[in-house]
């Protein structure tokens, strides 16, 4: 979970997806999640994963970093699969679902600055919740900086040595106590500022508009097609035998995606 990497890509990246309107990307992500929830054939799920990866590669998102993040839920899915799934295909389905869902969300986060992702959430939640959500993300970076300052100081003052793990742990716990005090002070100062600047509740975020209509259309159509395929295989029984075609299509997607991504580079 490297928030700074996500943030960096979202803010300084410049891919086709970065140019799409955040609202379109949110809808596309929702469609993909619906597809993940409904997919019930491992081969179709594999196709889904592959083509999503292919799409990310095609627009030149940092696919490798994204996959590392998506791997985390995969590990837990594997645990789940081995314990719960009756057979290998079902186990594979569980893992693929986890990876695909994570990949969909991560694609959104890697191509959209966090305010634009949180703003729609903020609009549908109570004021305190939405505002606190935006405030959390802002504070996260301040605190992370603070903590790296703290641990740097511990390091320089010889607080950490492998030979004395207990002392090292104690020093770290202290640092955490210091961080706690700091975050309370921080909230006090933030409160002062809110007061001074006339806060009455309700942060507002300028809505980012689409910089490229075709990007929105592409994202929406692409995820709609994937959902359509999933739905077809779920509810049209006759198709079950052809699920391998979806996997194949996914593989082709990935290959072309990788090629396009490389060509553009």
């Amino acid at each position, binding site marked *: 979970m490297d928030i700074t990497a996500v943030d960096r890509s979202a803010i300084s990246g410049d891919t086709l997806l970065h140019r799409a309107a955040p609202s379109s990307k949110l809808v596309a992500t929702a469609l993909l999640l619906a597809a993940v929830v409904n997919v019930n054939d491992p081969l179709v799920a594999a196709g889904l994963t592959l083509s999503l990866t292919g799409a990310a590669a095609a627009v030149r998102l940092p696919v490798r970093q994204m996959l590392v993040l998506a791997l985390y839920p995969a590990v837990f899915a594997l645990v789940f699969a081995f*314990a719960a799934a009756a057979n290998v295909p079902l186990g594979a389905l569980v893992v693929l679902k*986890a990876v695909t869902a*994570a990949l969909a969300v991560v694609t959104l986060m890697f191509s959209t600055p966090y305010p634009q992702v949180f703003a729609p959430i903020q609009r549908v939640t109570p004021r305190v919740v939405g505002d606190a*959500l935006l405030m959390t993300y802002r504070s996260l970076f301040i605190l992370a900086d603070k*903590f790296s300052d703290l*641990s740097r100081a511990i390091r320089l003052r010889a607080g950490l040595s492998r030979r004395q793990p207990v002392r090292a742990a104690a020093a*770290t716990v202290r640092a955490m106590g210091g961080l706690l005090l700091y975050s309370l002070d*921080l909230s006090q100062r933030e409160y002062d500022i809110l007061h001074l600047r006339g806060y009455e509740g309700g942060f507002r975020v300028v809505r980012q508009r689409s910089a490229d209509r075709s990007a929105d259309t592409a994202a929406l159509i692409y995820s709609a097609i994937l959902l359509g395929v999933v739905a077809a295989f779920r509810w049209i029984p006759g198709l079950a035998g052809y699920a391998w075609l979806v996997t194949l299509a996914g593989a082709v997607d990935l290959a072309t995606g990788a090629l396009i991504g490389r060509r553009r580079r």
Partner: protein
Amino acid sequence: MSHIHIPDGVLPWWLWVTGWVATALLLGMASRMATRTGTRRAVPLVGAISALVLVAMSIEIVPIAYHVNLTVIAGALLGPWLGAISAFIVVLVLALVGHGGITVVGLNTLMIATEMALGWALVHGGLRLLGSRRVRPVAAASTIVTLAITTTMLVGIVALAGSGATARHTGALDVETLEFRNPFSGDLINVGLLGGDNHGHDGEHATEAGHVDEHETEAEHDDEHEEGGALSVSRFAAVVYTLGPIGWVLEALVTAGVLGYVVRVRPSLLLRSVNAPPSASARVGDEHGGR
């Protein structure tokens, strides 16, 4: 922190939808209660404490990759209502940055909100009973009791879900694999506290691999499970209750250490809220004595 690591699209939809609905209700109620003390006070406080919890979860305390959660502390400082809001925010941010489990955000919020509310009630009850000098034992005991109760809740959810293989970690203790592991491999912050500077991550992927291997053997035992059927709640519970306590103790030690430090450095912090009505604990950050 009790955290259900269930992949999206696996849990029965009625369960996670119920989780979302309950969370929505909880948040509605919480924000009404929270705004009584003023939105302006609540927003920065919840923001800072949620950020603190998120940062803390990325810190390794012991080289074997044990990480803290600070939910009891967050609960003690925020109180139950702001705690519920903070729980939602923490879970949501985790899900968005690649933790997975967007659909189970609702269920996870309920778990952590409960943990924070329990932590708040126990810490403050204990301090009122025993006095602030005993902050360490109070904090430690509260943490253990809180985690024991939420673990029981988790077993309940597992029973509801009808699947015996819900993976869970208490602290970072993965009860399924009987080992401690750090779920935040690529840390939030790039500070290798004990290792070399910027290259602390390689080793962890190795443990992840080992982690998976262990499951292959374990899976054999679970072969009798049918899809979504035959739960082994009893076995799950047995594992949780025998191994969970190690995680609880570690979390308890850290909680006691941090709260002890805080009380020594700034005694007024907890004491004030001890004597104040529950909602007033939201004003904990008020240091200037001004408005």
